[in-house]
Structures are given as C-alpha cells and as structure tokens.
C-alpha cells in the first residue's frame, strides 16, 4: 500500500514573533522541529510498513529549510520525501495550504491512506487535514487515537470530549491522529545517514501547475487584519508568610459567597 504523511515544520517554542503588517509568523531565526503529532502520524505509517509492507512518503509545505524536517522523517524510516516549496506558497491560510497539498498529493498519487497530526502546535487549527480530504474527495476521520487496518478499510477510534467513537472508513482515506495513538520511535544511526544522503525532490507552483494567485497569501480566503498581545493582568491580593491564614480565610469566603461551600453539610 502507498501511504502519504503530511508533516509541518513548527517553531520549537512558543516564543515566536508576528509580522504586524502581514499577520503571519516570523519563522526566521527560531529553532524548528517536526510538529509532534505529525510524528505520531509518521509512526502509524511506519507501523503499517513493518506489519504489512507499505511505501511511506512524506510531504511538507514550507520554505527551503523545511528540508530539515523531511530529512528527519527519512531518518525515522520514511521511504521518500517531497518538499512542496515556492515563494508563491508563503503566508497561506488553511484553505490555500490544503489546495497546494492536494495538488501535490494528486500529482504523486494515488494514495491508499493519507495521515497527518490532528493539529500543529503553531497554528492549532486542525483544518488542513479535513480540507485536503474534501478537496481530494476522500473520506476523513479526525482525533484518531487507535487504528486497526483491515483489507480495504480501516477501523478507527476517535477520542472526543465525552467518550470514544468507533468508525470504519474505506481506503483511500485521510486520518488525523492524536498522540495517544503510538509512541514515535527514535532515529537510528543508519537512518540518519540515509536521511542526510537522500534526494529531496521539490515541487513548486510550476510543477504543480498552480497559478501564483491561487496559492499562499494571495490565494487565501482569510486575511489577518490585526495582531495584538492579550492582557492577562488581574493582580489580586497577595498573602505570604504569617498572613497566609488570612489568605486561606479569604478563599473560603469567596467560595461561600458563590455558594460553593454549603454550611452544615456533612463531608
């Protein structure tokens, strides 16, 4: 079977600045990692490869430095990696990103399964997966915490707010996964060597036949109009040392005033 894994390179901390004119993230000069949930998606693909044989191909859209993430995926055991990169792709919203990824997947397909993390730690939208599935007209499931492969279908467990949902999807399909799905493996020394040496084909707007107006910031349906820093300040009363008992009493009063402690109640 042929499996495509979508990965995103994300900043390795929350300490990222925004470009106030475009409202997009400034990624230069910040350490970058593979989005952690995408590693669970990759592990699921590698697991299928180990158990029943599969070609695992990794795709990532981003600037040229995204190559690092793809080489890391190769060192973990992916068979091939595609860098989807073009200046015209920069600054895209989830819709424009899904359009571009769908074009890349169509060009290299057909795929039996497409896997991705449920969301990325930077944008946290979780939208690119389902949008890509809709554009490719394949069924998709999200929040996948367990999967069991059948012959031409896959059983999944979705871990949602109030419980566990079980679904069966035919192949081909797209799944976005949670970290409870598996434990991502570490790269081996030989894997690292392979990752460094592998060829990385680049797909750009030309090779994907995407007009610059239909991708990136220009092709986006949404526009960031403003970014601002939230104010979190409350600066309430502070108690320490010998005043702590007074602080504790204050808390009890606040709870009582909200009827959260019922007097005379046995406990």
């Amino acid at each position, binding site marked *: 079977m042929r499996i495509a894994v979508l990965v995103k390179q994300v900043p390795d901390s*929350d300490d990222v600045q925004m470009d106030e004119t475009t409202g997009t993230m400034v990624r230069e000069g910040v350490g970058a990692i593979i989005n952690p949930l995408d590693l669970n998606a990759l592990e699921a693909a590698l697991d299928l490869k180990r158990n029943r044989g599969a070609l695992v191909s990794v795709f990532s859209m981003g600037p040229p430095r995204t190559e690092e993430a793809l080489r890391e995926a190769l060192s973990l055991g992916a068979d091939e990696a595609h860098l989807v990169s073009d200046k015209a792709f920069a600054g895209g919203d989830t819709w424009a990103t899904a359009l571009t990824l769908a074009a890349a997947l169509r060009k290299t397909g057909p795929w039996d399964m497409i896997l991705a993390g449920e969301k990325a730690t930077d944008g946290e939208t979780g939208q690119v997966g389902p*949008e890509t599935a809709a554009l490719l007209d394949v*069924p998709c499931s999200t929040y996948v915490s367990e999967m069991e492969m059948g012959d031409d279908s896959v059983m999944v467990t979705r871990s949602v*707010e109030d419980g566990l949902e079980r679904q069966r999807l035919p192949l081909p399909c797209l799944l976005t996964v949670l970290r409870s799905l598996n434990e991502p493996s570490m790269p081996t020394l030989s894997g690292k060597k392979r990752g460094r040496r592998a060829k990385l084909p680049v797909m750009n707007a030309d090779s994907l036949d995407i007009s610059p107006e239909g991708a990136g910031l220009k092709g986006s349906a949404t526009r960031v109009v403003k970014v601002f820093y939230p104010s979190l300040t409350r600066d*309430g009363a502070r108690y320490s040392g010998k005043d702590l008992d007074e602080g*504790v009493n204050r808390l009890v009063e606040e709870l009582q005033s909200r009827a959260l402690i019922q007097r005379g109640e046995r406990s």
Partner: protein
Amino acid sequence: MTFGSANGPLLILGEVRGGVISGVTWELTGKARQLADEVDREVVLLLMSNGFKNDPAGDGYRGADRVIDVRHPSLDLFNQEVQAKVLLEVLRNEQPSMVLAPATSSGRTVMPIAAAGAKTGLTADCTWLEIEAETGLLLQTRPAIGGNVMATIRTPDHLPQMATVRPRTFAPPEPDPDRKADVEKPLLPDECFESRVEALGFTPHEEDAVNIQDMDVVVAGGKGLQKAESFSMLRELAALLKGGVGASRVAVDNRWIGYPHQVGLSGKVVAPRVYIAAGISGSVQHMAGMQTSEYVVAINKDPEAPIFKTADLALCGDLFDIVPRIIAAVRRAKEEVR
C-alpha cells in the same frame, strides 16, 4: 453554485449528542442574535439529529429566528461526512453570510470539510466575534502561537464567512419559553445521508472521568506537585468543593495525571467560577486555558511566578503547607452549624 450571500442570514451549526443539544449551541445562538441585530439579519439554527430526548422547543431556541430540524437515522452517531453534506445542502438553500459552529471535535471536523466544499475560508477556535462597522464583515479573533498573541481575521471576498468558536467563550442567554422560532423540517435529497464513513459505536467516558469543563470549581496542579501522589491532595480538595481536578502540560507530560485533565491551549479550556492553581507557574499556554475563569487563586512558592499576575488571590508559599490548610478550612466551614 454559491453557498452564501453578503446579506444572507447567520447560520449556527448546533451540536446534538445522544439526542441532547449541547450547551455550546446556545452560547452561539446568543452571540449570533447580538451580531444579527447589528446588521438586521436572521439567525438560523441547524440541528442534525435522530430525534431528541427532550422537546427542544420548550426554551424558545434562545435567539434563533428559525430552526432547521434535520432528522435521520444516519445522524444518530456522529458522522462527519453526513453532517458536512447536510450542511452544504443547507448552505445552498439558505445562502448565509456567516456560519458559526462550536470548536469541538465535531465542529472542528465538519466545518473544514464543508468550508473546502464551499470553497471558502474558515477561522478556527475564535474567542471573540464582532461585526466590522464599515464593511459589515465578521471580525474573527483567535489566539495564535500558544496564546502569545491574538489575531483578528476577516474573510473579505469569500462567502459564507465561516468560523468555529471555542466553547465557554460567550454566555448563553436564558431559556425563554415565550419566544417562538419557526421550526422547519426540510426534505433533503437521500444522497445527503449516504456516507463512506461508517459510524459503528460510541462509548461514553465513565462517571469519574467527568469533564472538567462542566465544573464550577477546578483545582489544578503543575510542576510544583513533584509527583503523581501529590494529586491526591488536590482530589481531596476538589471533592470537598464538588469540583474537578485540572493539570498543567508538565504534569500530564510527566504522566502524573491523564490527558483529559490537561488545562491549556493544547488541553481543555475551562472557565469555572473558581480556579485554584497549585504549583503552576503560569505559562501562556496554560493561561490561555483558564484566563476567563471567574475567580483565580494561585498557590506558588515563587513570588515572581507569572500566574500571580492573573490571579485574584495569590497565596505565596509552599503548596504542601497551604493546600492542607485550605482543606482544613473548607472542612471547618462545611461543619459549621447555621
């Protein structure tokens, strides 16, 4: 084919689970009512179900002018493909200007499928919505990059303007049985209810895994607890207050407590009446998950801990000393005879 128009109604994708309308649905109808009044539009509520446990008409649908009540056996268990098809069909019929859905596991799955089908934009996880006076467009504000910044987003040239809204962001209006909404039960093409996805079953979480988002009191612990066993102290306090136990990402990553307890941008967003944070320094990521709580109590030995800035009551000292004192004080208060 178009799926929206600039002067169309505001459409709310309601959430129905197990025949019960989720509370977040009313948070959205309430906010939509307020927005719709500013631009003189209708609020249309779409409910997809296989029937309701209680008649939902009793409370006046809290702000909706019209209700589109779609019932079908294929909507009994959550099926993203059926819901997305029905939503698209309703978009074709209603041509709304804006579509709002809860940013829950279901809304966050159905909306992107439908938005891509309608070739329009979608903003995830909004925490504020308003109408831009000059343009009448929906301004969609959401946290970005771990809650470090807020971004306000517009969908200028695509319709409908679509957004998912984080639960517990807007207060639901009170039920008003005197208010009447027109309830329509449209006959949709059979094709809408056919799905490649087969929904096989649902296992609800057990009682003790209660959702901390529904609690009036959340007692949360972080790195300062140092080990899994320390959480028993927080469980004791939470039980006394009929509340739930929350945790920071560090505590969950260290496996001191399970992921359903995680509060923060990568966990749950809670807004209890009282939030007690013990041994949590207050990363932006954590605070994004609790900053709208009514009253915040922080317990930390580091006087510089950022959480103190967002706390209404700061108890600076050793949590292993302070938490037992709180437990004792709450017990005393409970045992006092009137």
